[in-house]
């Protein structure tokens, strides 16, 4: 395990985040992938049993789609880690109806290594430090949250002394402290980086009436989560609110896409393009991944990979290809499984970006028993 982890860390650290390509040659990617999968096959018993049933030989994998993908649902039922002590367990947010998924990490070294280069490339290509405000709990307050762990790591590496979290361990959001912190940053003309889930921002906007003209260089990061306990917000609504309340153009607002079951993150590229004077991407909502991640789209029915290589497979009148379920092949997921099948729908752009169409909607249950949601949908519109 340590050998492979070290090889992946070395490969990540060898990547030039500012100028390097976002994909490695297929041969190089698969060479590393075979090593990772061979380790997982050797030391992760549930995965080995699964792979054997699929007739999979780690040495035979020639393409990311060849690696047996594990559904995110499996993380709710099976301990999916290579044998040995566990450094940390991250858990998915749960609902009363749903089990929580668990991602066990024998080591967080690879996670830490994979966190910063993509952030450098797509969020901080112009500087080494910023004042970071996070509308979320810290890792100390939420030790099983991968999102809090990431925010913690980002503040630790990229934040200045005034950087901080604004939600405590009990979930209490100190919105007035954030108001004061933003006021002070504006007075000092200090640019800020405000981060949070989509609904974290929505809650902040609901709690306070103030608006700010954030100093030049300021930026925002939203990590998704457009559905909350209080309802749903669209990305368009949220970004309009960013403009109204922070006077920040869309190009200064960054989206991040990842999940508990992964060890890497994808980002939109608008900030990078703006700061480097490059053309804005054709799809401002397209996510890009670092070279140790490959995205495979699969047909939702057959679960077989969708061919997205050539422009002929793109939908007419659009540069985005056909929709499919998103499968991540994340080589930083060394300690568990590297091919993770999500329930998210996406399509690929011609330049390798990923358009996220959101989580597939919940199954519409239309049986003999009316749910209160079905009832209210008809009555309250």
């Amino acid at each position, binding site marked *: 395990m340590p050998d492979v982890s070290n090889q992946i860390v070395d490969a990540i650290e060898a990547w030039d985040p500012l100028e390097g390509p976002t994909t490695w040659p297929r041969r190089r990617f698969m060479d590393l992938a075979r090593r990772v999968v061979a380790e997982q096959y050797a030391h992760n018993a549930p995965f080995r049993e699964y792979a054997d049933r699929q007739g999979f030989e780690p040495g035979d994998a020639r393409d990311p789609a060849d690696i047996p993908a594990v559904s995110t649902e499996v993380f709710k039922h099976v301990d999916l880690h290579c044998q040995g002590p566990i450094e940390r367990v991250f858990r998915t947010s749960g609902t009363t109806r749903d089990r929580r998924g668990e991602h066990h990490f024998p080591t967080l070294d690879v996670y830490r290594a994979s966190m910063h280069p993509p952030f450098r490339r797509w969020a901080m290509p112009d500087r080494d430090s910023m004042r970071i405000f996070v509308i979320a709990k810290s890792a100390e307050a939420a030790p099983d949250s991968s999102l809090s762990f990431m925010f913690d790591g980002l503040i630790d590496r990229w934040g200045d002394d005034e950087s901080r979290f604004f939600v405590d361990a009990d979930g209490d959001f100190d919105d007035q402290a954030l108001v004061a912190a933003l006021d002070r940053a504006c007075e000092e003309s200090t640019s800020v980086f405000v981060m949070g889930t989509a609904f974290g921002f929505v809650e902040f906007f609901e709690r306070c009436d103030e608006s700010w003209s954030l100093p030049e260089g300021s930026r925002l990061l939203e990590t998704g989560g457009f559905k909350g306990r209080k309802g749903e917000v669209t990305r368009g609504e949220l970004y309009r609110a960013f403009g109204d309340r922070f006077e920040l153009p869309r190009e200064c607002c960054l989206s991040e896409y990842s999940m508990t079951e992964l060890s890497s993150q994808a980002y939109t590229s608008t900030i990078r393009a703006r700061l480097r004077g490059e053309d804005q991407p054709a799809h401002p909502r397209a996510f890009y991944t670092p070279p140790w991640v490959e995205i495979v789209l699969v047909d939702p029915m057959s679960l077989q990979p969708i061919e997205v290589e050539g422009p002929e497979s793109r939908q007419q009148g659009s540069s985005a290809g056909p929709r499919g379920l998103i499968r991540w092949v994340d080589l930083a997921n060394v300690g568990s499984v590297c091919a993770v099948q999500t329930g998210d729908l996406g399509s690929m752009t011609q330049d390798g970006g990923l358009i996220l169409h959101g989580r*597939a909607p919940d199954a519409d249950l*239309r*049986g003999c*028993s*009316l749910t209160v949601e079905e009832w209210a949908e008809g009555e309250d519109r």
Partner: protein
Amino acid sequence: MTSIRTDELDALLGRWFDDGEPADGMVDAVVRDGWPGRELVEAGLRRHRQTWQIDSIVEAVRSELRAVDDSRMVVRWPDCVAHIWPGLPGAGVTPVLLGAVAGVDQRIRPPSGSGHLARWMADTWSEAFGDSGPAFEIVEPGDDGWLDAELVVASGSDETIDELIRRRLERNTGRPRLIGYGHGVSLGVVPDLGAWSDSERVELAYDIAADVVLWHQQGCFSARGLLVGGADDEVDDFAIEVGRAIARREREWNAVPEDEGWVAQRAKQRGLADFQGTRRGDEFGWAQLEDDPFSGELVAPHVATIHRVDPQVEPMEVLQTKVDVPAENLQGAALAARDVAEGDRWRQALARRGFTRICRPGDLQAPPAGWWHDGRPNILDWLNVTRVDAGDPPDID
């Protein structure tokens, strides 16, 4: 009860079905309400036809009214009954037909966004009954016309029923009268595979698959799981057969849902089943071997969980250890017992455990009109009954 209107009911059912086959207009309405697979809709409506037999409907009403067939009991029917229909096509129709037999005016609140079937039925109703019959009035979602009805009949979760009562309380000064049917789940039981030959098992699986696939497994009479008695290998082989039969039914009924939510749920659950090596079947749905007790949860549309049981263990013990569903949520059991004594033991145990209907595989979705929904009488609760213990009973009909 004013009079039993069998002629008009006959005319109504004649518009709905022609020689047992559902009318095109009814099938069209259900498909437009968002139910994919015309062949599946036809198969489902054919089973409804078995429920909606005039003789059975009339007898269902008569048999319940025997409880108040006493000269000292004066019966008053509600002036109007409102029915809150759930999403499953046809669910909620039987009580309306029972009400029609009694000549009660009725208001129907169809499910939100899918009122084509209700409107089609309303049109045929007025053709059959003319101006003189009991009313069949559509109340659109958002219209509070249902609140004025003397009685409301609804199938919904506890939360939904509470919400309906709250809305009635807001509007009415009196105590709301509401008959609420709850969430129900059904299963199949094959106590001993050893009693069935290989070819019989194929047929049995095919019958069971009908209970699984019909209405995309959304109904309270949809089989979500099977208790199967036999050795591990034997049960595994039968699960393979059930998986094949599900695929066969899907092909015959063109029953492959395209709903994005259903497809995504299926993808996630299939991924889990593949990882655990429990999937048996390779089409949209499948049979899935489970070590855990039957929980009644829908894994994904057209997926039947298979729970192995020991044929030597007493039925009640099996039901206590292998069925993890509260008694109030148990609905139908499709029982395939060959041995007469064994069948008796199982029927007794299933009834004691809380199931409200026991039938043979393949018949789950065609309950007779006289089935007591949730184990309760269908129309006795509609009545106000006055018992006159002194003097002559008044004539209030």
